[in-house]
């Protein structure tokens, strides 16, 4: 950030006024939203709320099955997408450079994939995983749909962290006679661990916030899922269902929203810590 010299001409004051106005407006909405949800939600979220099943369509009771479903969705999603993500990122960062046509195709492809609207992804998940592969409305189908959604985010971030490793490491490894295989798995990947972790956490945040893609893939059965082939309702779908389809479900919707925000805030704090460490020069002395 560069400090510009202060002056007090009329247009400058006008610009200053408008920018403060807009910034404070944003802050105002932020405080309004958070204080509202915290105020209504905080008192509801007890340990009992987190570990009991919902009663009367979610008006009373807790959110235990939703937490379990969300956790299952995230785990399966990462189990599928992380190996693909790491392998693609290694390929892009170590075997291609940005000017090659194949790399360009993959990059454009990732850009498009990253911006497929989530409801369209849901349609695809429904047609492919639910109907064509016969998985039915299941947590597995939802997780696979989510995996398609987070893949670009994962690949992009892991690729960046691999590209940030100085070339000396590769040159030295080659000079020492290490094979490509060992260079990648014993030198480059361990160095990129933090970047990979950051990518994973970002993806978890993205997947946890997702709703529209899950409606018609993992469904919205609010029972406790018994296997990954059962339908399961994620926390975000629960908030949607309570506020749209269940009259009188507002209080529990507030509580669920509060829980979801707290979880995401925790993720945000971890991300911040990690990215600070990365910026501090993870590759200086070790």
């Amino acid at each position, binding site marked *: 950030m560069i400090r510009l*010299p202060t002056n007090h001409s009329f247009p400058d004051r006008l610009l200053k006024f408008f920018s403060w106005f807009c910034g404070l407006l944003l802050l105002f909405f932020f405080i309004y939203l958070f204080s509202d949800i915290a105020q209504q939600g905080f008192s509801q979220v007890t340990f009992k709320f987190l570990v009991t099943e919902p009663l009367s369509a979610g008006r009373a009771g807790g959110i235990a099955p939703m937490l379990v479903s969300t956790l299952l969705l995230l785990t399966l999603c990462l189990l599928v997408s992380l190996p693909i993500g790491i*392998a693609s990122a290694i*390929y892009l960062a170590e075997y291609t450079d940005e000017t090659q046509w194949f790399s360009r195709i993959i990059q454009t492809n990732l850009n498009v994939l990253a911006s*497929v*609207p989530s409801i*369209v992804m849901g349609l695809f998940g429904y047609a492919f995983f639910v109907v064509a592969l016969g998985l039915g409305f299941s947590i597995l189908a939802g997780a696979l749909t989510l995996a398609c959604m987070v893949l670009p985010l994962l690949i992009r971030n892991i690729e960046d962290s691999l590209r940030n490793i100085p070339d000396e490491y590769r040159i030295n490894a080659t000079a020492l006679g290490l094979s490509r295989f060992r260079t990648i798995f014993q030198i480059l990947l361990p160095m990129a661990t933090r970047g990979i972790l950051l990518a994973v956490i970002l993806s978890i945040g993205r997947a*946890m916030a997702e*709703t*529209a893609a899950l409606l018609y893939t993992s469904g919205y059965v609010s029972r406790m899922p018994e296997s990954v082939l059962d339908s399961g309702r994620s926390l975000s779908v629960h908030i949607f269902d309570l506020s749209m389809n269940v009259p009188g479900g507002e209080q529990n919707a507030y509580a669920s929203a509060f829980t979801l925000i707290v979880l995401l805030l925790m993720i*945000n704090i971890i991300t911040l810590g990690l990215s600070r460490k990365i910026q501090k020069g993870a590759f200086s002395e070790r």
Partner: protein
Amino acid sequence: MSPLKRDRYLHLVLKFFACISIVSLFFVIFFLVTESWRIIESTPASKYILDDAWHPTEGEFFLLPMIIGSLLVMIGAMLLSIPVGIFTAILWQFYAPSWFSSILERIVEVLSGIPSVVYGFWGIMIIVPLLGKFQAPGTSLLAGIIVLTLIVLPTITLVANSIFQQVNKLHIQNAIALGLSRFTIICHIIFPQAKRGLLTGVILQAGRAIGETLAVLMVCGNVVQIPGSVFEPVRTLTSNIALEMAYAMDIHRSALFLSGLVLMIVVFMLILMTERMKNRENAL
């Protein structure tokens, strides 16, 4: 296995994995097209624009109100969020004291990670009743625009800020040395350099805005009509899919996949625009 052979296999395996993302996008498009093929085949395109109403079970597919609804909500949200986002980024970079900037940074980052369904829920609880006081029923185009603005605003601010940061520092230092005023530097040195990046970021966010589903569904009222004013309810393409997918059969379902395909094409064109802009920038 000899190391040389292992390296060759590794290359192949990695390449295979890298192709998965291409295959998955191909599958997305393939399924959208095949599922919507039934209706494309049986219904002439003019019906979507000239039919009387949206009664998909009776063979009337008047998609135009939904398309207009989507566009109106998206354009309204962009018109509100672009200036507010850019002004906030200007405050963040050039006017605010540094302690305020760091608070702003944290807050905007947190805001950009909040699920849109939470914004939608908050919209139902706070914004809809508020609008309902002025003009019933409250669930309206305007409510959708406000909620969507809140959803895209944090990201637009983040993007604008990172673009202001990328402006050539040397130019700014020279401008300061020349004694130019702060206003002149921002408007005539920084802004022209940031213009193209801002445009790219805004276009990408527009794509996100038009694809937003549930938050818009929750506050827009979902009446299929071309709205006469901002206080009237509308239904967007995305909420139409989410609302009717649960019970849609046969050609009705095909019509919903067609609306998905339309959305995909819009988003694809937006991305193509940004790619071309990037290429032109590289050529300069």
